[in-house]
Every structure is written in structure tokens, then in C-alpha cells.
């Protein structure tokens, strides 16, 4: 009898240990980043251009570049993705073709980001002659986030009860009118949350932008969509691996990492805040 008890406590202890290891790693990571990175964050760091071969100055152009890129990506992927989800959920017949499409989209969500980068290089940069530019990178990132936007939008649409649609159709509304006046507004909170989450992932991506437009140093902020740009993830990558004085710029790398983390966390918080807000405000007019 006793040995069963011991067995139980050992077992439970091992589970607790697993969880603790995971938590410890996260805590350690955040602690180290914070400890070494937060002191680097100064007004100068965040708003100035880098100087002296990146060993001094700030990362403002990288912040600007990432922000610009994320906004552009949203503009490109959200409407198309949501439209695709609406079409799949509300219009497409439930046949093999639609199921195949959904499966294809789902599997494309798992494709490595570097493959998207390769595609972006071949098609956007070279095939469509956009050159290495903000536009090419945004298009590439938009493609990357498309599957997740479609998936979460579809899920949100599916949550809208069928009785709602039937009520509208029974009044003589067309399918588009039903979708536009009823289904979409009801599903919007879920869709928005999904979009913001997808974009927070895009903000942190490096591989897709490696060959489609990012540069380590630009003298000026991108003036047009066809210019090269700086970005936080790439900046961090170069500072920590390719720079000729890795030790010297280590603090700057930490600062960049923390800035990127803060940006991503803020976006995530925004997404979850949205979800909580709408869940609370259950009845929307």
C-alpha cells in the first residue's frame, strides 16, 4: 500500500518538475533579457539613427521599418484573408473541393517561413520586378500570415449561429446582405483578434524579409514602397552574429531584443484585450 503512495507522489512530483522547468526557462529568459536590455532603452536609443558602424546610437529606423512593414502587411493580408474566409464559410458548397482547399490552407500554415522568403524573392523581388523593397517584403509577409488569418476568420464565422442567418434570409435578405449586415459584424471581434495575433507573429519574422528588402543599414528612412528598410528582427540577427565587434554591440543587441519583445507582447496584449472587451460587451448593436 505504501509503495503505491510513494509511487503516486513521485509521479506527481515529476509532473510538477516538468511544469517548473518550463516556467523556469521562460522566467530566466525574460529575466536575462530584461536585466541586460531594459537599461539600454533610452530616449536616444529609441529615436536616433545608429552611428559609428552600429556601435552607438539608436535603432529608430529599425523600429520604423518594422512598424511600416507590419501595417503594410495588415493592409495586404487582412482584407483578402477575411474575404477568402467569408467565401469559404458562406458561399462555397460543402464539397470535396472546398474541403481540399481548407486542408491546403491549413497545411500551408505549417510551411517554414524561409520557403515563403524564397518564394518572395523569386516572384516579388525578381518576377514582378519590385526589387528588394518594403513592398516585396510586405507581400511576402502577407502570404505568410494569410493561412492563419483565413483559419481564425473561418472559426469566428462558424461561431455565428445558423439561426441568425436563417432569420435574415427569411425576411428576404440576400446572402451577401445577411453576411454584411449580420454575420460579419457578429464575428468581427474574433476575426480582429486573429488578425492582430497573426500580425504580431509577422512583426517578429526574419526569414521572409532576408532577401526581399531588409538591409542592415540605411542612411534614411524608406521614402517609398520600393526602398530598402531596416527591421528589428534582422537588426538583432546581425548585431548578434555578423557584426565585426560582437562583444561591443552586445548591449545594443539586448536592447533591440527587448524592444522587439515589447512590441510583440504589446500586440498580443492588444489582441487579448480586444477579445476580453467584446466578450464582456456581449451584446453589440
Amino acid at each position: 500500500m505504501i509503495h503505491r503512495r510513494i509511487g503516486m507522489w513521485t509521479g506527481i512530483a515529476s509532473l510538477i518538475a516538468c511544469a517548473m522547468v518550463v516556467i523556469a526557462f521562460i522566467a530566466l529568459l525574460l529575466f536575462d533579457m530584461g536585466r541586460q536590455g531594459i537599461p539600454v532603452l533610452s530616449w536616444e536609443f529609441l529615436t536616433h539613427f545608429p552611428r559609428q558602424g552600429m556601435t552607438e546610437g539608436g535603432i529608430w529606423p529599425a523600429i520604423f521599418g518594422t512598424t511600416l512593414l507590419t501595417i503594410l502587411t495588415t493592409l495586404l493580408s487582412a482584407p483578402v484573408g477575411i474575404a477568402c474566409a467569408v467565401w469559404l464559410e458562406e458561399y462555397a458548397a460543402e464539397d470535396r473541393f472546398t474541403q481540399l482547399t481548407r486542408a491546403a490552407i491549413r497545411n500551408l500554415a505549417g510551411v517554414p517561413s524561409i520557403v515563403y522568403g524564397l518564394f518572395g524573392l523569386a516572384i516579388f523581388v525578381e518576377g514582378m520586378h519590385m526589387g528588394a523593397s518594403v513592398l516585396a517584403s510586405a507581400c511576402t509577409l502577407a502570404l505568410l500570415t494569410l493561412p492563419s488569418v483565413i483559419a481564425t476568420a473561418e472559426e469566428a464565422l462558424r461561431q455565428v449561429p445558423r439561426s441568425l442567418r436563417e432569420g435574415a434570409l427569411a425576411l428576404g435578405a440576400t446572402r451577401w446582405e445577411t453576411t454584411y449586415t449580420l454575420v460579419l459584424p457578429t464575428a468581427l471581434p474574433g476575426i480582429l483578434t486573429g488578425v492582430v495575433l497573426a500580425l504580431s507573429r509577422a512583426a517578429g519574422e526574419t526569414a521572409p524579409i532576408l532577401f526581399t528588402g531588409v538591409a542592415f543599414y540605411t542612411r534614411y528612412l524608406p521614402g517609398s514602397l520600393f526602398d530598402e528598410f531596416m527591421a528589428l528582427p534582422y537588426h538583432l540577427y546581425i548585431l548578434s552574429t555578423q557584426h565585426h565587434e560582437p562583444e561591443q554591440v552586445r548591449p545594443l543587441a539586448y536592447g533591440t531584443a527587448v524592444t522587439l519583445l515589447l512590441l510583440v507582447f504589446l500586440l498580443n496584449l492588444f489582441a487579448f484585450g480586444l477579445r476580453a472587451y467584446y466578450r464582456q460587451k456581449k451584446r453589440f448593436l
Partner: protein
Amino acid sequence: MAYARITGRKNDFSKAMEKNILQIEQLHVYAKHKHLLKNISLTLPERCIVALIGPSGCGKTMLLRSINRMHDLNPDIRVEGRIVFEGKNILDRRVDPVWVRRRIGMVFQKPNPFPKSIFKNVAYGLYINGLHHKQRVQAIVENSLRQSHLWDEVKEDLDKSALELSGGQQQRLCLARAMAVAPEILLLDEPCSALDPVSTAKIEETLLEIRQLYTIIIVTHNLQQARRIADYTAFLYLGELIEYGPTAQLFEQPHHELTMQYIRGRFG
């Protein structure tokens, strides 16, 4: 009557001249190879209440939903036969279902108000059909809510969310919503089955009053309800139309043995 002025509908109070408004001819409904409705033929006179009764699963709701083309939404269901309304066979694919549904409205078993304000719920059908004129919309909304006996309860706060109403109120709202677009026929699918007796009474009262304006087809499980309000009653069993006639006659002197057994409560 003010309502007629607003909607431009003609009022005909003479019940003597009973024209037929809907003709169902040899209707068959199949779902995944199962023959659910078999050879239903029914003629519905205008401006009266027709009740569809029968045990669960006999096809009453199937029949109802065939009339306003709701089966279009379900690829597994096949409908054959003719339903003639205003000179057209409305089952014909070439007839626009949107047109059909505008003229034949439906209230569902479970109240399904939109997550919008009370006012916007009732006005929804009007906006969809292009009527945005503020005063006219307001007048119609008020009139519809009065007709479904909901006006006094909500007139103070029409901007409140419809989801905050009680079940009975929500169903009356759905009724008002359906009436606002002034259909010719109203289809009601067991509208009171989820409601308390007070709400049920209010809805029945409404139906009796509006009978002069619309033809009403009501599916009901409640035999007393059919007796109370219906002019004609149709009894369905296992997908077939067993008997159809004036309510009083069907209940007191049914022609068919099955009808008699059902009415006597021998099976449900």
C-alpha cells in the same frame, strides 16, 4: 386602417369570397434518399389561419420550409412538385428565392432576434428592401410592435438590445419583424412551443387579429391551440397528408381513423 395607408395594402374584410392564395401540388421532399414528404397537395385560402398538426417527425416543418424555399440552403434536400403562388411556381429554380421570402415570411420555433436594438430588429427588413425614410420606418416599426402586443412594453427604450428581452418578448419581436415587411403569407413554426402561457396567449391574440391581413400557416404540437385559432387544419402523419378541412369538422367529426386516434391522444 392606418396600417393600410402606410403600406399601401388593400384591406378586404369580406370572408365570403375566399380566394386561394397558395396551391401546393404533389409536393415530394427527399433528404439523402429518404422520402420525407409524400405527395402533398393542399390548397390554402387567403386571409385565414391554417394549422398543420401531427406527431413529431411527420414532416410539418419540412412542409413549411418548402414554402419559403428555405430548403435551398441545404444541399442534402431535394424538393419536387409545384407550389403556385401569385401565378408562379415558386419551387422553380428560376424564381428568385429572395422575392419569395419577402412575400412569405417566417417565424421560427426558437426566437432568433438579431444582436441589434429592438428598433433595428424590426426595421431590418425595411432597410434591406431599400426603405430608409425615417418617418415611414418609424411608423411601420411602431405599428408592427403594436400588432404583436409588444409596443407598450418596449416603447420607452427601443434602442435597448433585443437580446435583453425575455423569451416571450423576443418571439413577439420576431413576429413584429416578420410583419414589418408586409408579407402575403406568414409561416409560423411552433412559435409558442418554447414560451410560457402568458406569452403564448399574447401571440395567439395577435394572430387572431392579423388574420384579416395575412394568410397564416402555423405548425403546432398543441391541439388546443389549433382548435382555438385555426380556421382550417391539416393532419400529417409520416410524411403524408391524411386529412384537411375546417377545424371544427376535423376535430369533431374526422373522416380518417388515424386523425381520430391522434386527436384522442392515442399517439403523440
